[in-house]
């Protein structure tokens, strides 16, 4: 009998379409069932009958919204929890918590076994092509996915590393060096037509013993460097969006990567101890004509603010260096704040003693201005993050409103960075640089928690130098507002 299947992705923001749910959709449509896909808690589907509800989950810090979504749909199912299937990353990382909170025993890991969702057949859902059609249902409901004009898939699964900050070893413990993407892409073309881009979510493709076969497959699918697509001649693009392992990049592999239109090529620069390996890998990419690079910079893990600055600075300096090369490679830095794998909200203490709440917020304020990535331009970087580690430290400690409103309105007409600062920023910098290291520690301990009370408490005890800077923190709104009023009014 034809069943009514509801697929749900909780209402968090995502760039990538929910691949797992798309595969489940393919499976149920194969069986002749009716499939509906919704985003979040949808009151329209609440008054309909459903044979099964599948809920995908993603980051653990979406815990609250995810749990509320599951509760919403178990109520929709009249509490027949056996009809509700919850899977995905969060479900695999926090299965017991989810069970205690929602009454549903989640499905852990991949859908690689038909028993996991009580199938009456032997179809491996993980191997099915994703159903792109369901994305349109959601898009008409005022939510839009990016990256839909792309074949989404994997040419390998799992990772050979077991990095503490990464969930892959839990989620996909077995490394599989080769998955046939030709089959996948052919299936997608049959079902949903051709796509411009190829997004491969491989976690460590450079570790694959069949790396050459994978590159051959990609080329065979028409993704050769310079290839175009469709009547409008749009560029073909390949993206290994989870990044490549710099430690495994060598001349031979880079040569092969250069045969496909990687846009961008992504590397990770997780620790300053990898500096040498990382820089070599980037130079290699430049040598083989890689134009765009977009590199992940992990922070708040076991790093320090000064080496975080240094890692971004290395990219800026490399950009400068590459300007005189033939390729003119440009590297965008993507700072990624570490959030522990079991964190149920975004701001949890990671135990890193060098970072604190205030510093993390300050970085966020700087990044917000740039909307995410750190641009390759040197002047821009120096202005945003400071000209050296000390200036970066001074910016991190600055009141949030100062960071947000650092520059005078006509800054573009002024040459020096100091000249562009608002007067209160100049005062702050002077005051900060006059502090001894002990005084700096006092200042940081007062502002670390981003709590007004703590600043007030320290203020009473502090000496004059620290007191002046703490005053800025207590009065930031007033100071900034007063300086914003144009003189002629």
């Amino acid at each position: 009998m034809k069943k009514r299947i509801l697929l749900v992705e909780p209402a968090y923001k995502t760039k990538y379409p929910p691949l797992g749910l798309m595969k489940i959709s393919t499976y149920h449509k194969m069986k002749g069932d009716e499939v509906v896909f919704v985003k979040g808690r949808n009151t329209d589907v609440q008054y309909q009958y459903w044979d099964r509800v599948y809920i995908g989950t993603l980051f653990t810090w979406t815990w609250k919204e995810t749990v509320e979504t599951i509760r919403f749909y178990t109520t929709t199912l009249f509490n027949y929890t056996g009809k509700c299937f919850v899977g995905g990353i969060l479900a695999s990382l926090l299965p017991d918590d989810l069970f205690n909170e929602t009454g549903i025993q989640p499905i852990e890991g991949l859908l690689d076994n038909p028993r996991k969702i009580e199938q009456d057949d032997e179809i491996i859902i993980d191997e099915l092509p994703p159903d792109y059609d369901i994305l349109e249902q959601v898009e008409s409901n005022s939510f839009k996915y990016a990256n839909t004009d792309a074949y989404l898939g994997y040419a390998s699964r799992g990772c050979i590393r077991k990095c503490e900050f990464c969930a892959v070893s839990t989620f996909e413990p077995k490394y599989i060096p080769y998955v046939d993407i030709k089959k996948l892409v052919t299936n997608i073309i049959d079902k949903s037509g051709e796509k411009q881009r190829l997004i491969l979510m491989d976690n460590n493709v450079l570790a694959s013993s069949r790396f050459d076969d994978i590159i051959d497959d990609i080329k065979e699918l028409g993704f050769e460097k310079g290839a175009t697509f469709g009547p409008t001649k749009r560029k073909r693009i390949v993206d290994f969006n989870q990044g490549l392992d710099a430690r495994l990049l060598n001349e031979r592999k880079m040569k092969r990567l250069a045969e496909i239109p990687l846009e961008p090529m992504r590397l990770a620069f997780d620790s300053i101890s990898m500096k040498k390996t990382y820089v070599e890998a980037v130079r290699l990419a430049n040598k083989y004509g890689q134009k765009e690079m977009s590199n992940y910079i992990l922070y708040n893990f076991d790093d320090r603010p000064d080496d975080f600055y240094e890692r971004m600075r290395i990219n800026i300096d490399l950009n400068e260096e590459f300007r005189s090369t033939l390729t003119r490679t440009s590297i965008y830095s993507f700072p990624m704040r570490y959030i522990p794998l079991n964190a149920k909200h975004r701001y949890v203490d990671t135990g890193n003693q060098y970072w604190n709440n205030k510093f993390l917020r300050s970085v966020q304020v700087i990044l917000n201005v740039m909307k995410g990535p750190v641009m390759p331009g040197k002047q821009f970087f120096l202005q945003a993050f400071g000209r050296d580690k000390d200036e970066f430290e001074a910016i991190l400690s600055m009141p949030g409103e100062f960071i947000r409103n650092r520059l005078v309105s006509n800054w573009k007409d002024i040459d020096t960075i100091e000249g562009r600062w608002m007067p209160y920023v100049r005062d702050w910098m002077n005051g900060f640089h006059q502090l001894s290291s002990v005084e700096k520690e006092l200042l940081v301990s007062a502002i670390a928690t981003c709590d007004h009370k703590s600043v007030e408490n320290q203020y009473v005890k502090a000496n004059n130098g620290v007191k002046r800077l703490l005053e800025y923190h207590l009065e930031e709104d007033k100071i900034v507002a007063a300086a914003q009023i144009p003189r002629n009014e």
Partner: protein
Amino acid sequence: MSKITFGKYILDSLSIGMYSDPLMALREYIQNSTDSIDLLPKDTPQSVVEITVDGRNRSLEISDNGVGIPSRKVKSTLLNIGASEKDPINSRGFRGIGRLGGLGYCDTLVFITKSKGERTYTTCTWESRLLRQLINGRRSIDTYFLIDKATSVKRSAYSGLEKDHFFKVQMLNIHDSRNDLLNVPAIRSYLSQVAPAPFYPDFVSGKEIDRELLKHVPSYKNYNIVLNKEQIFKQYRSTVSLCRDSNDEIENIQFVELRDDTNMLAFGWLGNLNLFGTVNPTSGVDGIRLRCGNILLGNKDTLSALFKETRFNHYLVGELHTVDKRLIPNSRRDDFEDSAIKGKLFSEFIKEIGIPFSSKIRVLSKERGIDKERDNMGTLFKQASAVINHGYLSSHQRDRIVSHLNNVNGRHSAQEVQLAKQLIEEVSDAQDILSTQKIAKRTKAQVIDVLKMTLDILCTEIPPSTAANNLVSRLYRVITEKEHNED
């Protein structure tokens, strides 16, 4: 006289067919645990009933550190049916059938117990799957044969301390149609309403209620019941959530005694709410609930029939605890056994609570109706004069106001009818707010600003729903398309 047969369906009726809700089986086991804890010497430290639900293995365990059962008594206690040695006056259970409650919902039901001073523990296993097969089979068999076939008792050496004592119930390979026995939040909600759990420590009135109940209700006692490591509390809090997205506060507690000529039959408490509306049913505290030995009797509606309309009970929050020992719960625990004393209790309830509160709620609700009508009239006249003075936003709005004004009739005062008549004319002559000359003077950017603000207002003011979101997106598209076309 020929031998009388006790057929297989007796066991079926007492176990699988006994309860309508699988969670009731848990209630029976917790009742046994608390009875067993009561038998401990007074100075015993920290007694606890621990429930562990394991979703992966589809199993559940209820474990207590009450007195346990000595090994020589295990067979008679756990295999006999309807022959409990418990004292019906001081125990919550006494019929000797409650432990069968789990048979219908798992493949194997295991009891493991040890009493103080023994070096062994005893395991009593009921193969409930086999049992059900035998009952559903064609063969006619008697209860004795059935139990003999499906059960086993085994004694084993105990490696822990000799002074340990416990009783554990394990339900293995659970299957109930809704998965309720594996649904931790559902179990938590059920137990917080049914089990003899304490009030939340932060429920301000809890201490006062405890004090009074201990004074008047001899069987009143709280137990430390833990579900997957989290303690169970009754869900009463000072703030009570009502159905229509509003709250009420319990500031005072009213205590009630229900008596016959000589004895106190029951003692209870009520939170003094303002009776604005019914209490949210998902809060787990709506209605006056009847408890016996601090365990819920029946469900939250057991006393609802004693109000003029059953819904009136849902305006209230409180508990009624039985005091008189002659009030005996029936074997399903959904009511008392029928008796004159039960009749007396219920009549007293009607007299003291049922009727007084029914009439109070009705009067208040009528008054609110009148107030509302008055408010509505006020709002209507205000809207009408706004349209007259500033113009209408859409013709739909104008027509709606006119039609409402047309409805002002004999029910209202002569003055109101007169005013309505006059307003109808003026509203009908009113102008479109956007057609006035003012709007023409605005620049395109200003108009776009206004539209943007409109969207902002819509997004923040309308309740989130797909329909509302669709509306906003549609408006947005209309505006942006317009903007693009003009560029």
